[in-house]
Every structure is written in C-alpha cells, then in structure tokens.
C-alpha cells in the first residue's frame, strides 16, 4: 500500500484564498432560527462573525481582502481581525471544512 499521503495539512496565511468545499454547507436553519454548518456526521453552530467571514470566503478573495472588508465595515483594527480570522479559518481547515484555493477559482 502506498504510504505517502496524497494531501497535506493546509496552512493559511493572509494570501490564502479559502473556499467552502461542496460537501460542507453553510445554511440558515429556519426551524432553529440560526446559522448552521452541515458536514459529514457533524452539525456546527457558527457565531455571527464566523458566518460573515465564511460568506466572504469564496475562493477568489484572499484572507487579507476579507479582513480589509471587515475592518472597513466595523472600523476595527485590521491586525486584530487578521489574527482572529486566521485562527478561525485554520481551525476549520484542520477539520476539513475549508479548502485552500491557491489560485482564484474561475
């Protein structure tokens, strides 16, 4: 059996362009009146900020672009937002809920 791993752990930086894979669904659940993330054998509950970040992760925007948008919208410190965003997105990527699109998707 081939022992080499076909995939490696995605490591994000400000230039990464994360995207939610097809099998992970960010969806508003009307019955429970909140956003949920549906993934294999898992249902997760993102907070409002996480929802906003994930909605901006379209495989085109770099994480830095997402941070700039949020910093402008909330007149907040971009460095602080970048730190929080990287932690959030890296955690989701480690669990397989985000892909790293290295090039903008067509």
């Amino acid at each position, binding site marked *: *059996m*081939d*022992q*080499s*791993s*076909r*995939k*490696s*752990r*995605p490591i994000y930086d400000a230039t990464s362009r994360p995207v939610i*894979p*097809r*099998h992970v*669904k960010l*969806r508003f*659940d009307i*019955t*429970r*009146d*909140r956003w*949920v*993330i*549906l993934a*294999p*054998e*898992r*249902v*997760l*509950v*993102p*907070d409002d*900020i*996480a929802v906003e970040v994930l909605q901006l992760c379209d495989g085109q925007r770099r994480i830095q672009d997402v941070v700039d948008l949020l910093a402008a919208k909330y007149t907040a410190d971009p460095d602080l937002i970048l730190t*929080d965003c990287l932690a*959030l997105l890296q*955690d*989701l*990527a*480690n*669990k*397989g809920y985000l892909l790293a699109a290295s090039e903008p998707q067509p």
Partner: protein
Amino acid sequence: MTDQSPPVADFQLITRTGDEVGQKTTYGIPLAVLAELTHRCPLQCPYCSNPLEMEVASAELTTAEWCRVMDELAEIGVLQIHFSGGEPAVRKDLVELVRHATQVGLYSNLITSAVMLTKARLQELADAGLCHVQISVQGSESIVADRVGGFKNGHVKKLQVAAWTREVGLPLTINAVMHRQNLHQLPEIIDMAVALDADRLEVANVQYYGWALKNREALIPTFAQVETTNQIVAEAQDRLAGILDIDYVVPDYYAQRPKQCMGGWGRQFFNISPSGKVLPCHAAESITGMEFDSVRGNKSIRWIWDNSEAFNKYRGTGWMPEPCQSCEFKEIDFGGCRCQAFALTGSAGNTDPACAKSDLHAQIFARATTESAEAQDRFIYRNFAGGAVEAEEL
C-alpha cells in the same frame, strides 16, 4: 469573538422557537435520522447492527413512502439523513431517494458496504446531491476482511469503490469495525484510510447487542489489545491532524464510563426501520415489550417524536435509578445504553453495566477477560434464517 465560547461551536441541544423554557429541555428538535432502507445485504458480518429478526423486502417502505417521510423530516427541522441498511444500494430507487433528500434540503450521507456500487452509479448519486459516503471495512487485507464479511473478493471491491468515490468528488469516511480478530491490523487500516484519501476514519469497536452479542465470544478483544489500540489511535490522531480525522469508539465492557448512546435516548436522533418503524435507536427493538409507532400509522413523525411512549420512557433523567440518579455525570452520559442494560440485566431501566458504578461492572469486565482468552474464533454469520455457523477450517 469576545466571550469564551469558540466562534464555531459543536451543536447544542436546541428546542423549538416558542417552547417555554424548561418545558421541553430534556430533548430538542431532532438533528439527524438514520434511514434503514432495507435489511438486505450481500455481506454477512457477525456483528451486524440489524436486529436478529430482520424485515423482509416485501415489508419495506416504497419510494413514495420514503419521499413523504423525508418531506416530514425536513419540515420538523431534521438537518441530516443517513441512508443505511442492510445495504442501501440494494434499493433500485437509491438515486431517486437521494435526489429527493437534496430537494427538501436534507444533508445526505450514504452508509454502505460498497460492494454493489459502480462508478456510474456513484456519479449519479453525486449528481443527485449526495454529500458524503461512508464505506465499512472489515480488515486491512482480503484474507481477514473477506472472512469477517463472509463475502468473497469484497475487500478488493471496497478499495475500488473508495477510489471511485474520491474520483467523482465525494468526501469519504472509512468505518472500520474492530474486534479481537482484526485489531492487530489497525495500523495498516489507518495507513489505508490515508492512502484512500479519506477525510475521516471511524475506529469503531463492536458494541454488543443483536448479532454482535450472539458472536461476543468470537469478537470480544483482550484487555491488552484495548490498551494497545488506545495508544495507536492517540498517536495517529496527533500525527494525522488536518489530514485524517479519527473518531474512536472504545469497547465499553472495559470502559470506566458508559458511552453517551445516541447522544441520549430520544434527545437528538432517531431511526426509521425498513418497514417504517420509528425507533429511538437502531437496536431498540431488542428491548422486548416496548411498542413502536410506524410512519405507516395515522400519526405524524413530529407527534411520534414528541408524544410516543417509547421516546418518552427514557428521556431526560427522571427515569433513572441509583447510582445514576445522584451521579454527577447523569446529564453527560444519560445512564449509558438502554439496549445494553436490557441485554445484560434484563431491564432497560437499569444502569448500563458498562459503567464502573454499576454493581455488575466487575462481573462483565471479568466475563470479557475470560471470553477473550478462550479464543473461540468461529463466527455465526448474519442471515435471514437466524444465522449460519462458520465452517470449520480443514
């Protein structure tokens, strides 16, 4: 992100909007449903989770009935549906059922033995909106795996279907059911899951009710095996973080605390049998004397979930005897598994003997140790005729 809770938390129990606080806090809106489409299966695994008395093909819900059930599930707030069996691919309408799940907004998962799937059918399933595939394996290579499954060339076929699953772009979980006669292959099974490009691996030690209870002598691991397994899993979880997510189900005869079965009886999940019985868990029918409602009756699924005797019987903590009632963990593990309590004590309302606080724990621990040392390795294979004893080796 100012408070202590993580930005993306695991799901917590959520009651319906408008429900009064405290009124229905012992259970929530069901999150996920296990839809057992059929009990038919080409494999004969001796630990099958189906009941000993299986439902025949002619009793199965029709396509139209399953579609109506899915409409109701989506309406009451169910988010995920797991198509299981038996082997769900036996059903000719599988693609149609997956398409319907997608149409009503259910996240769909296929739990399969894989041996009946072709690449073309997988592509059709993906096109119909299937979200995830879980393939069971019985070992790391054909000799052990095909003997356990009682199906010739099954292992090779599974590897092929796992590769096709990734080729059509579907995420893959490998479910490895572990017991005394295959635990030595766990390191190779972990390597295999990585090589197959799976996202998840479930290392699921056999749970002993139904067919597995009938085969317990042949399946139960030794305590030494369990200790080795704990180490192998912990090391692999650390090494493969971000590459392979490993879920581990311990063999609970050797545990100190019982498993939180189904996340608590009637709390977040339920099961629908091939003929439409609505069950708190897939083994609930092993508890004799309990009545279950059917989707073929005149009651809605929501009514059954909220009001049926079977669901309410072991909900919350009010039903618990001592030592559960005064236990600090009672709202964490909910007294363990009701089916196991019934199988080992004769009453589903007793404390699960898997718990170290049960009077019977020392006894089942000793029984597990004794049985595993006797090395009685012959299986009783699962079939519709009450089981077939494995032929003796020549």
